[in-house]
């Protein structure tokens, strides 16, 4: 049981990291959304597995939220926005894919170096989880830094947050995971609504953040 549980969890967590890399690589808008859906599915699988391993039924709820909200609702919403803004065919230029990838790999290495010794006390399962979670978080942040487009920034943020959920579920018997995931869903919902609400298109004619920069810092 132990090794199997470990291997499967390893598989899912590693898969999540892998998908993060793909996200980092992907430059087509629609493709981005699809891969994010995949990201969410992998996450929910790993969460479900954790629920099964830890015999923590409430984690199934988290998994359900993940699959429902992140794999269905959000992608649909984003698609609609993109169609609305007529950017679903856009291809965002990702500056220096190679460099980004390289940086991403360094980040994974860093997170391993930081986490594994730090969690020496914890169970190997948790250690793996945490290390991969950190790398997913860092990759998500890297994606936010490298993308100029509001939607891909949101996607980056959500992948980051997937990493957090991974970590939370990985932490054995951590309470409030459900609440936290709910809170996060709300947050993301706000972001997505925010894009609607701010009607970036009407105001700025594009979702390109650079347009927002026109008025940044109160510069008239």
């Amino acid at each position, binding site marked *: 049981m132990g090794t199997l549980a470990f291997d499967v969890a390893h598989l899912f967590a590693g898969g999540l990291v892998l998908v993060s890399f793909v996200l980092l690589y992907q430059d087509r808008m629609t493709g981005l959304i699809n891969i994010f859906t995949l990201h969410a599915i992998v996450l929910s699988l790993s969460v479900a597995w954790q629920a099964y391993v830890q015999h923590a039924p409430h984690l199934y709820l988290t998994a359900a939220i993940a699959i429902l909200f992140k794999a269905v609702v959000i992608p649909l919403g984003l698609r609609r926005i993109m169609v609305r803004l007529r950017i679903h065919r856009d291809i965002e230029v990702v500056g220096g894919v190679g460099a980004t990838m390289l940086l991403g790999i360094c980040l994974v290495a860093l997170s391993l170096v930081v986490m594994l010794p730090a969690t020496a006390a914890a169970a190997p399962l948790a250690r793996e989880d945490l290390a991969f979670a950190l790398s997913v978080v860092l990759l998500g942040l890297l994606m936010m830094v490298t993308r100029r487009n509001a939607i891909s920034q949101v996607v980056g943020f959500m992948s980051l947050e997937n990493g957090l959920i991974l*970590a939370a579920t990985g932490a054995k018997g*951590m309470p409030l995971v459900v609440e936290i995931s709910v809170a996060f869903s709300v947050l993301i919902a706000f972001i997505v609504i*925010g894009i609607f609400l701010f009607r970036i298109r009407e105001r700025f004619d594009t979702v390109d953040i650079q347009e927002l920069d026109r008025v940044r810092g109160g510069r008239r």
Partner: protein
Amino acid sequence: MNVPALDSVDALLIVPALAGLVLAFLPGYRLAAGVNCVASGLAFLCACALLPHRPAPGAYLFVDDLNVVFVVLSTFVGFTTSAYSASYIGHEIATGKLNPAHVRFYHAMYQSMMFAMNLALLANNIGLMWVAVEFATLTTVLMVGIHRTPEALEAAWKYFILGSVGIALALFGTILVYMSAEPVLGEGSDAMVWTSLMQHAAAFSPRLLNVAFVFLMLGYGTKVGLAPMHAWLPDAHAEGPTPISAVLSGLLLNVALYAILRFKMLLAANAAAIAPGPLMIALGLASLIFAGFMLYRRDDIKRLFAYSSIEHMGIVTFAFGMGGPLANFAGLLHMTMHSLTKSAIFFAVGHVVQVKGTQKIADIRGLTESHPALGWALVAGVMAIAGLPPFGVFMSEFLVVSSTFARQPLLAIPLALGLLVAFGALLLRLVGLAFGEPSESAGEVEASVVPLYVHLALVLLAGLWLEPHVAAWFRNVAALLG
């Protein structure tokens, strides 16, 4: 279990929550403003009720010397600000900057923000605290964007993104803390409860705590507005309604700082973990000096004082980083004084902007000539925030600088230089704002200067005579912080 006190703890959450609900549907701005004031006043009274006797810590909420300081302070500022916002919002409506729907939304959000902050301060559970801080972020974001101007939206968006990232980092740190506690305290919520965490901190895995603190420092530090995570702060202050600027500077930053302090205590209690001091000192000094230089190029009066908030948060963080009874006392005092003074300044600034019809520093001149009451109040406020006697900030800066110089001269010198640089900028702007030939005014406003003068009076009093009980109370909190 002390019944009335517990009630007051719950009341601190229930009152704003209910008020928020009511206000969401209450038409008519005067009534709403009244309810807002009353609710905030009630919250303040409940907070004061905590002073005499503390309830035993519960599973989710608890009260100790440390967070009482914050609760009382934030409810008080929340109260005065609500009083101020009554007249301010009135003028905004009169000039058509806000419509009634917005105002309803505004009041509802105001109360829910108070709710979130109280929850964050009273939470006995690191997860709950995190949720509360996140909620507070959301509400403030919505209020920053309330004007719907491109600048406002941009500010809100920036605040939103940066704030969310900060929150995310903080969550990761929280998870790590749980991880480090879980082997000792076993699975379940026990490993997330402050009181038990503090008791067994010594046994936690130090390396995990170190990593956790990095994430927490950056995460909550974003909300404190420490450089280089400060970017959201100036725009949020400048574009939101002025009462919100006052609340942001006066409360929100403190709440985030409170979180950092808690975790600092946790690390301090663990001998093997790295001392959290150096990191806080570094970030504090960076913020102080950075903000000091940023003050020079500001052309927008609210951004100016927003940067000065960054500067002072830097000082406070520095002081707590130094640690020791003197520095901690100074830090607490400085934080309190800063909340009072800075919100007072924003009260003044709000009216100034209304009477002059602009936020451009260059277009505001000779206030002491044209509006003596406001002008001199602004002068007094800036003098106070710049740490000149007889105001209270001087006492804290005196303690910080002198004690630091006695212990770490090399740290005190950049500190002093940063203070001097910042003072130079503030004074330069102040001379331009308050003196010289007055610029033309947009029109009169019925400004309620009472909250403004109350704050200044308190700061003045604290500078001359710190009430012995308050002093004793602060001192044992300082001892608590170690």
